[in-house]
């Protein structure tokens, strides 16, 4: 306990030192964290050399192999990779549900490897509690994050009204369509006062039309709020439409194949996919993923 606290203090001092360095304009060793800072200010989330493998019988199956990445303050970062590339495992590590075999995780500059309760989360299924009202679902998540009960319920109602779901705030979630449930789930993640929002393929289960609608909706809402987001998807178009930066992952054991800066300006139009540059970039990434997959087999 004591050692842990001491480490955190040291960590904070290190971060403090880092900041003065930037003020003085001295370029230090280029760590992933530094890159995050130059992108969007201070790194909200930083993963350093994360490795994880699972044991099945006697064989070890490596899932993640030396993943390093950062999410800057107010930055939308996407992990793009084929199914089974360990993206969800990475989320479980960030959430502290599991510990990595190697590497360290920092949130807001403090080491949080294996620590729970530091992120807000939006899973693939809406995961609303059927016995709580729509507003109650949001409010209870906020109280978990330490928000006062009354304030949480007021905030939930206010925001539901703002996204046009005010009249179902007191209904049970089953009255909502799949897309509407995902909006509530996103709102629940957005309102939790935590450093990083982790969105795990939130639109994968929706039909194409709803999905496009949801992307446009999320883009608008996020650009107004500018939270730090780590987003997982296997859709190249979704990644290019929404993100500031993309990490392309290989098949398991996952490594970062490439880091891509998405060049389209903010606020971004949801029909950005019509631009020639978008198509070119999409082809690039597609080729990269195909090569990455093929290279893995050798």
């Amino acid at each position, binding site marked *: 306990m004591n050692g842990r606290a001491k480490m955190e203090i040291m960590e904070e001092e290190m971060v403090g030192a880092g900041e003065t360095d930037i003020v003085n304009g001295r370029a230090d060793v280029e760590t992933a964290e530094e890159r995050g800072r130059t992108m969007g200010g201070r790194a909200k989330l930083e993963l350093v050399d994360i490795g994880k493998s699972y044991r099945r019988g006697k064989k070890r199956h490596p899932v993640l192999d030396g993943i390093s990445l950062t999410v800057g303050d107010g930055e939308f970062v996407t992990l793009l990779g084929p199914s089974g590339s360990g993206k969800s495992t990475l989320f479980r590590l960030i*959430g502290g549900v599991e510990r990595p075999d190697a590497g360290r995780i920092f949130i807001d500059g403090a080491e949080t490897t294996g620590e729970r309760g530091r*992120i807000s989360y939006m899973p693939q299924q809406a995961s609303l509690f059927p016995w709580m009202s729509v507003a109650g679902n949001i409010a209870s*998540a906020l109280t978990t994050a330490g928000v006062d009960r009354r304030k949480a319920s007021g905030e939930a109602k206010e925001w539901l009204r703002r996204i046009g779901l005010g009249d179902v705030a007191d209904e049970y979630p089953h009255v909502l369509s799949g897309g509407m449930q995902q909006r509530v789930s996103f709102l629940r993640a957005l309102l939790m006062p935590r450093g990083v929002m*982790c969105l795990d393929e939130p639109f994968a289960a929706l039909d194409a039309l709803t999905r496009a609608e949801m992307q446009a909706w999320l883009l608008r809402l996020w650009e107004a709020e500018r939270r730090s987001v780590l987003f997982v998807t296997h859709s190249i178009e979704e990644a290019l439409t929404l993100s500031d930066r993309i990490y392309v992952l290989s098949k398991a054991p996952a490594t970062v194949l490439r880091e891509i800066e998405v060049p389209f300006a903010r606020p971004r139009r949801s029909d950005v996919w019509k631009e020639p540059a978008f198509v070119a970039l999409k082809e690039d990434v597609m080729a990269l993923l195909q090569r990455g997959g093929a290279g893995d087999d050798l």
Partner: protein
Amino acid sequence: MDNKIGRLLLPVGTLIVVLGLWQLSVHVWQIKPFTLPSPLAIGERIWEQRDRLLAQSGSTLRLALKGIGLGIGLGVLSAIVFHLIPFVRAALSPIIIITQNIPLIALGPLLIIWFGFGMTPKLVLLALVCYFPIAWSMLAGLGQAEPHLREYLSMIGTNRLTVLRRLELPASLPYFFSGLKITATYSITAAIVAEWLGASEGIGYYLVLKSKGYDTTSVFAAIVCILAMALLFYGVAALLERLVIRWRPADRNGGRGAAS
């Protein structure tokens, strides 16, 4: 709406037909009331004895309610303890299952030898009967919570007690109620066995008295009272379930008895 009436009409109609055939058979074959009284004769007897039957039933109802109270209290408590501490569950569950397999007829006299003729042996007997359905169905329910909801809660970092309160307890409620419905009907039977063993009042006592006197009509009158009480308890439990569990979609398939 038509459907609802139809669902009620069919069983009630069948019951009336069965009673009619019964009445007819008794007349046609001249069956003696000592062997099988007619439904009308039973009805008359109930009406004659209504004050006594009501008083005796009331006493049985009170006993059964105490049993259900004990069953709910102990059942819910131990389901939660067993769920949170698997070690306790592994240690105790074989013993509890054994207690469920001892015939009440054998257990009752033993309890009287140990605890005397007062209230204690009756309550122990009732608690043993009422406890099990609630504890075991609720225990199953606590483990049945949806994995993706569990995963969500652990990702946002909730502690064990919050998971219990926000996820596992609400998820186990439908299971609790199917246990309660079983316990509700068992409790009446168990109360009657308890009264049979040694009591000076209650419908069980009345039943013993009348059957020893070969008063078959009164025995049937007592049976009707017992059935009415059991149905009443079941109905109340089902009503409570409907009042408490309102979140299930109200479609025809999902709304009724999904967990039982």
